[in-house]
């Protein structure tokens, strides 16, 4: 791997982060932050982490930016009172903040420098790399760690997503959602109609081949959510709600959790333990084929259902607020 390329990317990551902080225009600064995210995804791919690169590109620079745009348009409708705070202007604030941050960076680097010698992976990682095929039947080691060795962690993580969706719905719901935009122009609508099947195919391929190639439930589910978000933006929210109703999203999300726990309990019933894979009722299959890796295909489906439904309901809740008039805001 070329170190010069990496140095170049690092330089631009810092540059775009710098621009994102110091631009006055919020829209430009979030676009700049999105560029930072894409550059980070490139660095992850160069550092041989394809799964992480895919997730970073889809979630951090795609979905988060779209959520920002919604929050931004909501808060810009009534312009905020302009001007710096008189008590404490920026030129008085930044020296202290800069000093603290610089000291922090120095201490952090001093601490990290200890680890800059030759890196020897721990015995756990060596075990994962050498035994994954035998013990789980999957080819993607990261997916095997997420869905077999540490599947209980993944269950906890999906619970965190559920909690976030719950919190956002609690904060922003309660109004009568009658208003809806009419969507974009005819040409965009036709173009979207042509694109949708391919986006869904891409999402399904990422999701169902997660145990063989980079990808899996998180990434596939996020692409499904992206398709729902695109439909929401292009055709208007009422169209999206008529096709994929918020109720069915809830059902999908709950169904994903129930499927995950059910597969886990199946392992106990077989005498293997919670979320047991090959020691439970599942077989490894032929390595490299679709039906291999035991329960990993089903677990990917469960995680994908949960992530896709969760993220798309977050976006739907937020964009619905955008269309409400100021007076009809739920309090």
């Amino acid at each position: 791997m070329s170190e010069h390329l990496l140095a170049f990317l690092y330089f631009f990551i810092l540059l775009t982060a710098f621009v994102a902080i110091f631009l006055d225009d919020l829209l430009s600064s979030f676009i700049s932050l999105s560029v930072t995210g894409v550059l980070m995804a490139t660095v992850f791919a160069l550092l041989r982490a394809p799964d992480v690169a895919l997730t970073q590109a889809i979630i951090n620079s795609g979905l988060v930016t779209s959520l920002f745009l919604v929050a931004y348009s909501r808060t810009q409708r009534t312009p905020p009172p302009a001007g710096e705070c008189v008590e404490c202007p920026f030129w008085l604030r930044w020296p202290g903040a800069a000093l603290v941050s610089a000291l922090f960076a120095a201490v952090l680097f001093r601490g990290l420098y200890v680890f800059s010698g030759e890196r020897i992976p721990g015995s756990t990682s060596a075990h994962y790399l050498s035994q994954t095929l035998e013990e789980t039947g999957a080819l993607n080691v990261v997916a095997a760690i997420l869905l077999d060795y540490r599947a209980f962690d993944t269950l906890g993580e999906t619970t965190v997503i559920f909690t976030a969706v719950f919190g956002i719905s609690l904060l922003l719901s309660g109004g009568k959602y009658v208003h809806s935009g009419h969507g974009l122009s005819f040409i965009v609508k036709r173009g979207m109609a042509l694109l949708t099947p391919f986006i869904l195919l891409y999402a399904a391929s990422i999701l169902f081949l997660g145990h063989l190639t980079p990808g899996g439930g998180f990434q596939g589910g996020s692409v499904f959510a992206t398709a729902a978000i695109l439909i929401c933006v292009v055709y208007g929210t009422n169209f999206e709600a008529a096709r994929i109703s918020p109720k069915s999203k809830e059902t999908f999300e709950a169904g994903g959790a129930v499927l995950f726990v059910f597969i886990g309990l199946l392992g106990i019933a077989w005498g293997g333990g919670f979320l047991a894979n090959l020691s439970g009722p599942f077989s490894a299959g032929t390595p490299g084929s679709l039906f291999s890796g035991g329960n990993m295909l089903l677990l990917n489906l469960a995680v994908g259902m949960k992530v896709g439904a969760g993220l798309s309901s977050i976006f739907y809740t937020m964009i619905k607020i955008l269309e409400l008039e100021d007076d009809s805001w739920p309090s």
Partner: protein
Amino acid sequence: MAVMSFITVSLLFALGLFTVLSQRNVFKTVIGLTLMESAVLLLLISWAYIPGGSAPILPLQGKGVDPLPHSFTLTAIVIGACDIALAFAFIMKLHRFERSVNVDDFRRLKG
């Protein structure tokens, strides 16, 4: 190479911290949090890299990079995105009551 990554991680984290400490716009605070999160992700992935290693997809060609930090990072990305979405929901709710996204204008919490 590791030193270069560590310098970037330190600077990126410090930039995020600086933003959270010095900026008064709540959207800028969210940007600062995102930058700090990115620094942590970059640290984990650059620490997992082994020179000459290949991606952790079987069959391996030569030695593979450490797959364990990769799975931690995946988890962190998804949870970070949920955090940021929740922060945006809070901002929208705050703006509803205070008509502002500037921390100095949120006077109700002051004693």
